[in-house]
């Protein structure tokens, strides 16, 4: 058990810090949340800077144009960029973390050459078309259908919770290509050009009042068969390769951010007198233990990934279940610190409190995570 970083790791961290200190002050102001084109431009420019500095696709394999970094280096990268207040991955999220790795692992040489470099350079933006209104946590229940017609698929259906759809060039789309096959067997993975005729995007307003997501309607959209990655009807397996790709680093930046928020809560409480409330104070102390442990668990999971051990994804369920709950508790505590100020929707922590409500739902509800832990880790029987 070693929590000290190697010389190489520390050198990597030092170089990164130096670079961040140099470039961050020169960044333009963050665009407004509702200005999608400006956000795309901002995120793309940042990605281009990462590319030029040799940090693009840090955790991608070298033969896909990435840096082949270790999970620990990726952890350090995510920690340091968060600590330095660097831009988030933003519009490049799906390209760098889902679609790109999928293409790298399962695409043909031609597909890799076509799609990977523009992702790394920030030139092309991807969005994700997995979720459907009728499917929810039961992802495999998707019904968007694709019928082969000559050299194309004709796709009809609808998707939901598609982020950055307004400005994306491509969508990694899961479609049902064999309606007769068992649920997981008749699915294929397509790269959908977002400017294809028949694609309609409608902003989806969340309870936070913002439109971070969209619905996407597909009306007989023609997608070239060459845009299919992996074999026909093998899309479920292809997708799962992607989902296991992050190897424990999914929430590194967020845990760092939560620990920063917790410190700010304590200081605010000291300043506004709420610190005198022992119940609140002890709650903050409890959250300190919680987020420190979550950080250690992240280091544990990353180390496990680095050594190639463990059940991929299973430790992630343990982390996600506890973290999503802890994040909600953090912002409930923030509301306590704010008192009546917790009713002010313009307060940053209030907005974050609202968005934290999705954490126990998105990417597998807490109920689903508990099933995964019980069945895949603990080996309890499926069934009821």
């Amino acid at each position, binding site marked *: 058990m070693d929590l000290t970083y190697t010389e190489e790791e520390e050198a990597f961290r030092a170089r990164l810090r130096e670079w961040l200190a140099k470039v961050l002050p020169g960044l333009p102001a963050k665009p407004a949340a509702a200005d999608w084109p400006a956000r795309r431009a901002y995120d793309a420019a940042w990605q281009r800077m990462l590319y030029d500095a040799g940090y693009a696709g840090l955790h991608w394999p070298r033969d896909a144009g990435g840096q082949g970094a270790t999970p620990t280096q990726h952890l350090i990268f995510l920690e340091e960029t968060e600590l330095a207040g660097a831009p988030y991955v933003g519009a490049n999220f799906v390209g760098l973390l889902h679609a790109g790795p999928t293409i790298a692992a399962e695409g043909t040489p031609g597909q890799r050459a076509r799609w990977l470099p523009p992702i790394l350079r920030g030139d092309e933006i991807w969005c994700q078309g997995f979720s459907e209104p009728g499917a929810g946590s039961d992802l495999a229940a998707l019904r968007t259908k694709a019928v082969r017609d000559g050299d194309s698929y004709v796709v009809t259906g609808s998707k939901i919770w598609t982020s950055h759809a307004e400005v994306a060039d491509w969508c990694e789309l899961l479609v049902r290509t064999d309606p007769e096959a068992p649920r997981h067997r008749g699915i294929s993975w397509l790269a959908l050009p977002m400017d294809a005729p028949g694609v309609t995007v409608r902003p989806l307003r*969340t*309870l936070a*009042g913002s439109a971070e997501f969209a619905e996407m309607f597909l009306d007989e959209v023609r997608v070239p068969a060459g845009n299919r990655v992996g074999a026909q009807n093998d899309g479920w397996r292809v997708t799962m390769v992607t989902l296991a790709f992050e190897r424990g680093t999914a929430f590194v930046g967020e845990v760092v951010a939560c620990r920063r928020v917790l410190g700010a809560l304590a200081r605010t409480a000291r300043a506004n007198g709420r610190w*005198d409330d022992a119940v609140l104070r002890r709650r903050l102390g409890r959250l300190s233990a919680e987020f420190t442990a979550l950080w250690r668990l992240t280091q544990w999971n990353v180390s496990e990934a680095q050594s190639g051990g463990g059940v991929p994804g299973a430790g992630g369920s343990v982390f996600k279940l506890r973290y999503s709950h802890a994040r909600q508790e953090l912002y409930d505590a923030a509301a306590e610190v704010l008192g009546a*100020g917790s*009713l*002010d929707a313009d307060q940053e922590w209030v907005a974050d409190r609202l968005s934290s*409500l999705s954490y126990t739902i998105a990417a597998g*509800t807490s109920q689903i995570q508990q099933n995964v832990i019980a069945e895949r880790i603990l080996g309890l029987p499926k069934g009821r």
Partner: protein
Amino acid sequence: MDFQLTDDQRALRDGTRELLAGRFGRERLRAAVDGPVLDRELWRELAAAGFFALRLPEADGGVGLGLPEAVLVLEEAGRALLPGPLVACQLLAGIVDGVATGERIVALADAPAAPADGPPHPAVTSAPVLWEHPADCDTLILLGGAQGADPVHEGREAGAYRSAAADVVRTPFASVDPLTPLARVTDIPRKIPLPLDVARVRREAALLTAAQQLGGAARTVDMAVTYAREREQFGAPIGSFQAVKHLCAQMLVRAEIARSAVYAAAVTEGVLDATAAKLLADEAAVRNARDCLQVHGGMGFTWEADVHLHLKRAWLRAEFWGGAGAAEEALAEGLIA
């Protein structure tokens, strides 16, 4: 002892529910979300139905009913997410002219007293005095206010003051609840003292707010159960899975516990009973809305679903008329009194 609704009380509850379903159905609710301006016509209709004059003697044009009936009406208002200073108008009908008939809309703002065991932290003392629906009210009644240099809190000992809305200096801010605009009161004239039993008003405001929370808590049980019966996942209604069943069962338990506390406090009129009722109803409303959202999954996270309106209103009401900390301290004190 017969701790059940009387036939008249049942009729009042059912009638109120029917009235609100007809006059403030889902379309009106969503319209109010988009433009949170109080509907004066609806307000007069509510008044005509006795919403505000409920407890005034029949001789004074009231309905002559009591606190339990007011609780039942406010519970229904909470179920329906009806916006507006209902509690204030209920409490001040008969005291402020025109409120009983719905012609005048009055709000209550509370500048709570410092705790009994000495002055609190200076920063806490200047907690903002909040005003619901500031743009829609004709009159504001300020209760108490701490002593000191702060013009809003000054003169707490003097009781209650009445001000024309236009004379009150306030800073509106973005309310977390889209149905309830809010402002911070920054300066208020103290020219017209109002002879009011401030302790009683606070106690009844807490209880009537708890009644609304109870209504919200009960409504979110219904919403969760309806959704769980209809929504299918993994080939079955999600309500057939124990995880969802048990969420719903705990929601019902919270609502029923809150109900017995709220109804009992309406009968006894005890201050600790009202305090306990507010504590339990706040918790039931907030946690039920959260669980309702969880049962709804992604759909519950959308603006179009009504779940978030219940959660935000529950958060808002929990900030008014005494929070959990003060309530628990008062109840603890009651154990050794």
